[in-house]
């Protein structure tokens, strides 16, 4: 490992250490290679995109989480917002919902997501509560609302809408479209004044405030964006499962934080980007398929999965440590 590392050359090493998601890219290549080795049909059309389609909800939530984290916060309520919006979508639609009914349901779900984000944003940015405990507290409110709307898993999404999720527009898989749209939206957001404001707020909010950045509004908006993305994730979840679940989003919250960190965004804020988090989600999906195709006994799979994730998280630190050793 260290010999291979030394052979890369100091210049490339510096680049690798500076780029926030260079390590994530490296990890991605390794994960793809292992997947291809274990599963030679890996690159066949349909298999890869089919695997990834299941990770679209996480991808959308992770993008929302990234925006909050760059702004110097964290949102532990995103999973509960997903659950809440998910049951709103499903309970307002039915098997033969009319187009206007579908539009109403979509509007209601997305509005709920944005409002939930606004509540978080108000508490964190305006009232200046601690983000971790605040969003933990609000997660109970959203989880309670989800259970109120739909106490038991159930409901059916309109088949026409569900089928839309599985088509390949212009011959490209749906997952790719989601990624392209997310990257375009992110580029658009960064090109506005909001982009630099967000990074400045997350970097050092007091200096940003003194330099005239509307820190509170910027942070408030970051939570609203995360709520919106959670609602989008909820829609993807409803489409991929075809039904509603009042606790369906629970696992997404913590996974989204892991994906953000794997993608090279630091939890301290002011740095990172959405592209890295998308790569982080793809890595998580690849790790899962490596474990399930490795032939390991099923009772060992969770442990192996967990160990690989920790190893991936440790990667940049290990690299830095080895670099220091060599120089010393």
């Amino acid at each position, binding site marked *: 490992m260290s010999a291979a590392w030394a052979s890369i050359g100091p210049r490339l090493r510096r680049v690798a250490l500076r780029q926030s998601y260079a390590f994530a890219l490296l990890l991605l290549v390794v994960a793809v290679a292992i997947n291809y080795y274990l599963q030679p049909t890996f690159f066949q059309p349909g298999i890869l995109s089919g695997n990834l389609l299941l990770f679209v909800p996480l991808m959308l939530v992770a993008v929302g989480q990234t925006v909050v984290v760059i702004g110097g916060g964290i949102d532990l309520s995103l999973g509960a917002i997903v659950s809440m919006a998910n049951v709103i979508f499903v309970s307002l639609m039915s098997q033969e919902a009319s187009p206007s009914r579908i539009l109403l349901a979509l509007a209601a779900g997305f509005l709920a997501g944005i409002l939930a984000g606004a509540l978080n944003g108000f508490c964190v940015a305006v009232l200046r509560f601690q983000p971790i405990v605040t969003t933990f*507290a609000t997660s109970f409110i959203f989880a*309670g609302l989800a259970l109120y709307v739909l106490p038991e898993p159930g409901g059916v999404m309109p088949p026409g809408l569900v089928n839309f999720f599985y088509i390949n527009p212009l011959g490209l898989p749906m997952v790719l479209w989601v990624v392209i749209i997310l990257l375009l939206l992110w580029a658009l957001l960064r090109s506005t004044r909001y982009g630099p404001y967000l990074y400045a707020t997350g970097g050092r909010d007091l200096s940003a405030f003194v330099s005239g950045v509307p820190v509170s509004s910027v942070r408030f908006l970051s939570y609203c964006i995360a709520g919106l993305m959670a609602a989008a994730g909820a829609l993807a979840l409803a489409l991929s499962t075809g039904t509603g679940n009042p606790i369906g989003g629970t696992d997404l919250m913590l996974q989204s934080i892991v994906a953000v960190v794997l993608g090279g965004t630091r939890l301290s804020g002011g740095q990172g980007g959405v592209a890295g988090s998308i790569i982080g989600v793809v890595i998580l999906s690849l790790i899962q398929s490596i474990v399930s195709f490795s032939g390991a006994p099923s009772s060992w799979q969770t442990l192996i999965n967990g160990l690989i994730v*920790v190893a991936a998280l440790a990667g940049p630190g290990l690299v830095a440590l080895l670099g220091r050793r060599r120089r010393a």
Partner: protein
Amino acid sequence: MRVLRLNPIAIALILAVILFVVGGIVQPGFASYGQGMNILRLAAFLGIVAAGQTLVIISGGERIDLSVGAMITLGAILVFRFGDGQNDQALLALALALGVGLLIGAINGLGITVLGIPPLVMTLGMAGVIQGLILVITGGRIEGEAAPALTSLVSGSLIFGIPGVVLLWLLLGGVMWLVLQRTAYGRRLFAVGTNRVTAKLSGVRVPSVLVLTYALSGMLAALGGVVLLGYTEQVFLNLGDPYTLPSVAAVVIGGTLLAGGVGSYFGTMAGALVLTLLTSLLTALELPESARLMVYGATLLLLLSLYGRQKALRQ
């Protein structure tokens, strides 16, 4: 408001009394001695787990330990399986559980200090690893038995109808006070939490303090799992999950700052009592689950508004 900010422990205790009285008014029998003891017993589980969380949070830098829930389950399962209902074996199993907790906590600490993994994701990743370990140990089927001595310690009453686990909790409170206020480790922990750089410059070996802190957190979570087993007498694969984030909330309600350097375990004990009272009250009201969750969340938010606020930008 100023007076309120001065002593969070007092606010938490007053809140606990108010909740208890309100419970007695809306639900006859809630404010009885027996029910009070039962609530104290439930609070003890959260309180013991939150002891480790208190140490981690005092160490500063918004460090929290998200692996405690999985660690509770692992601790309970180790004693359940290897103790297998025998009192003498259970003692060995207890030592095993505490040792494993110490080891896993230390690995958390090493990952955070040596490899620079953010504490939140390190402990989160570790929770995944522990869940994997649990599945490997049990193979999905959990066989074993809770030792009678453990059950009688937790459920039986020793003196004045006070359950043993509550006395254990009070003892832990005393030990925690000694550790935090009267040992070199305690002083170093507060120093690291107040300012990591000054602590380092004053000769504190910051990494060792942090590794020890996470190790203790792992051990105390495992201990929490063991006493919880004495109460439930059964284990589930997600036994400890509902304790992870409430342990953080109990610490914060007790006035320990997430920024670090300020805090006490007595505050955490009061916080654990408030949260447990709130949960018990909502259960006693027989509200539907959805309403219970919403009221719990809203109350938590209200508590944070009392003293969880950060400094204003405009000075």
